[in-house]
């Protein structure tokens, strides 16, 4: 298929170009310019729409294999496409865990058959995410992983983490760390503070995250191996990362929309859709995360898309699993809370949602350029609407954002020159 997209505002991470036409041929951006005259099978009128590089998610959970009742590769990639994500990196906490090449190949094959966006598996650092023995990173890399992480089960043993980092670097695999000192977290189910006291819930102190962020920075500084900090949620973590970057440590960081839009207050009434890990923090932390995004301390916005079945969330708060779905809310929340408020420019948002995660994962995406794969989204930034979880394409609807008023709707999503979503 050949597409001609006429009269769009093209936004890359470094520039906005007004009123251009994009010509897509054979999956590739063949021409960018004014008044394209090429023959096309279909012409799309831009009329005020923005064309952005397809979004890239460095952190999501597709639940496949093992938990297909929550999500699978077919539903997860469709949800991603609707949210404007054209490439997604999925965490290894499936059943079985992604700790060997066979599971990687299963995900790659299924994604090729049933998926509609690019799926990049992340392998575990340790076998079974048990934090003891290293996983077969080399074989997994051959099979297609783009990074390693033990995600929600952080490697508590610092020596194992150090070995994991230096081994991963030999295969040029980025290491992503979910920073949580499990002893300090002590089985808590929300942020420790005024609200946890009022709800009578055990709290997770912000220091549980900070201590581990500090450890990873020190290990990276010592080993010279880059480290990527997942879902930053605290003021002190932002400060630690900022200081480390200043003195040249190879640390990168991501946060998620819920950490710059919501506080622990959202847990009131025992709202299990506001239960995630790291937990929602205080307004002071939210401000620090926004400042970290603004000054570049935080490089990436990821979704941490974590689908759970309604029945699993409709239980006592302590018993509910952590996480919320995120593909279909990440862009409008980021646009509404960061760009419309003047914290980031649109190109900076493109950087954090597409260019920077592509760079982290070493994938050739994240920009609209002649000769590159046509992963493109068309976005209507003036479209104002209320988020409606019942319209989500994800199998799960566990989101605290139902009814939130946002701006910015994904109109069309192209993956390699093929339309995978149209509003």
């Amino acid at each position: 298929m050949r597409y001609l997209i006429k009269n769009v505002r093209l936004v890359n991470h470094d520039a906005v170009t007004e009123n251009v036409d994009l010509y897509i041929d054979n999956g590739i951006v063949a021409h960018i310019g004014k008044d394209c005259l090429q023959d096309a099978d279909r012409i799309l009128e831009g009329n005020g729409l923005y064309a952005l590089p397809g979004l890239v998610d460095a952190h999501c959970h597709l639940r496949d294999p093992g938990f297909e009742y929550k999500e699978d590769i077919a539903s997860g990639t469709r949800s991603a496409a609707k949210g404007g994500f054209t490439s997604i990196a999925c965490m290894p906490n499936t059943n079985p865990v992604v700790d060997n090449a066979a599971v990687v190949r299963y995900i790659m094959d299924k994604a090729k058959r049933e998926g509609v966006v690019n799926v990049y598996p992340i392998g575990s650092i340790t076998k079974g995410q048990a934090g003891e023995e290293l996983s077969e990173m080399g074989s997994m890399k051959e099979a297609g992983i783009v990074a390693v992480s033990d995600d929600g089960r952080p490697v508590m043993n610092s020596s194992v983490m150090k070995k994991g980092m230096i081994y991963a670097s030999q295969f040029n695999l980025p290491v992503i760390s979910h920073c949580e000192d499990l002893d300090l977290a002590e089985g808590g189910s929300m942020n420790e503070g005024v609200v946890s006291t009022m709800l009578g819930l055990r709290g997770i102190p912000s220091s549980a995250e900070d201590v581990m962020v500090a450890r990873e920075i020190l290990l990276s500084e010592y080993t010279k191996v880059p480290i990527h900090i997942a879902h930053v949620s605290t003021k002190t973590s932002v400060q630690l990362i900022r200081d480390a970057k200043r003195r040249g440590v190879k640390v990168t960081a991501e946060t998620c929309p819920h950490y710059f839009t919501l506080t622990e207050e959202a847990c009131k009434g025992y709202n299990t859709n506001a239960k995630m890990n790291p937990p929602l923090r205080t307004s002071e932390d939210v401000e620090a995360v926004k400042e970290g995004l603004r000054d570049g301390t935080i490089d990436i916005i990821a979704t941490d898309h974590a689908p759970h079945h309604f029945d699993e969330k409709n239980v006592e708060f302590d018993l509910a699993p952590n996480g919320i779905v995120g593909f279909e809310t990440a862009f409008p929340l980021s646009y509404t809370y960061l760009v419309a408020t003047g914290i980031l420019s649109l190109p900076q948002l493109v950087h954090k949602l597409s260019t920077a995660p592509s760079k982290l994962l070493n994938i050739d995406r994240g920009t609209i350029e002649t000769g590159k794969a046509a992963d493109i989204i068309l976005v209507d930034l003036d479209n104002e609407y209320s988020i409606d979880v019942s319209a989500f394409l994800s199998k799960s609807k566990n989101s605290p954002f139902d009814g939130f008023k946002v701006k910015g709707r994904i109109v069309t999503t192209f993956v390699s020159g093929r339309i995978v979503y149209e509003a």
Partner: protein
Amino acid sequence: MKLRSKDILGLEDMSPEDIGTILDTARDMKKIVVGKIKRVNYLQGRTVVTLFYENSTRTRVSFELASKYMGANAVNVSVATSSVAKGETLIDTGRTLDAMGTDIIIIRHSKSGAPHLLARNVKASVINAGDGMHEHPTQALLDMFTIKEALGGIKGLKVAILGDIYHSRVARSNIIGLKKMGAEVNVYAPSTLMPPGMEAYGARICESIEDAVKDCDVVMSLRIQLERQKKALFPSPAEYSRFFGLNGENIKGARKDVLLMHPGPVNRGLEMTSALIDGDNSVIETQVTNGVAVRMALLYLLTGREEK
């Protein structure tokens, strides 16, 4: 008289007017509890189920007697023998009780917020008989009733709450209730058992027991919840009683006629010396009697609500 809500989940969402109504009604109910013939028909034909997911003697018996004194069909569901052991969810258990025609479900649960989850999913009224570390509204109401009965009111009183505040739902409900009724509240605990954010309740965090009890009208000591502590949060019982236990010496700065309260069961010698527990200022047994009266008042007001 009636209450505005279907459920009694906590003092946080109860108005001072409702608290006043409950305490006034309890005064009438107490006459029945201390009378010779403990039987009225206010709850005749009604079914009250106590659904206890945690061990309890005094609260469960208190509710059961309150129901029976008023002629209700009172059923006790003990968790070890119910479907819960087979993995049934709280919501499904609640719906099952609903389907059998239960009017009021009284629930105690180790998870904070469990009564709220149940209340959202059943037609029956739900009374929280203690949820995790959150609230224990009927205990706070019976404590306030005891204070009002002995001292004539609550407004303007100085109350000290001492001990394991962190794990205590009794402390949370009492602080909320007492503040709503106009009392001043002092709190003191080992720093490892003081939860963050107590200032938000309007309580004063004190420097010592002496500082906390000074000029107090009421001193409430809390039970050390040994079963709730994953790790030792204080070095030893001996050290606790020496630095944090209430005794004849450190209580001296309180008013002479100070009321000494404890929600029970007491760890004698740990939280309070036996001399204080059994002394003239202690109202610990009165609290137990009043518990039945307050729970009768709640059952009465909740069932009355439907008939208006």
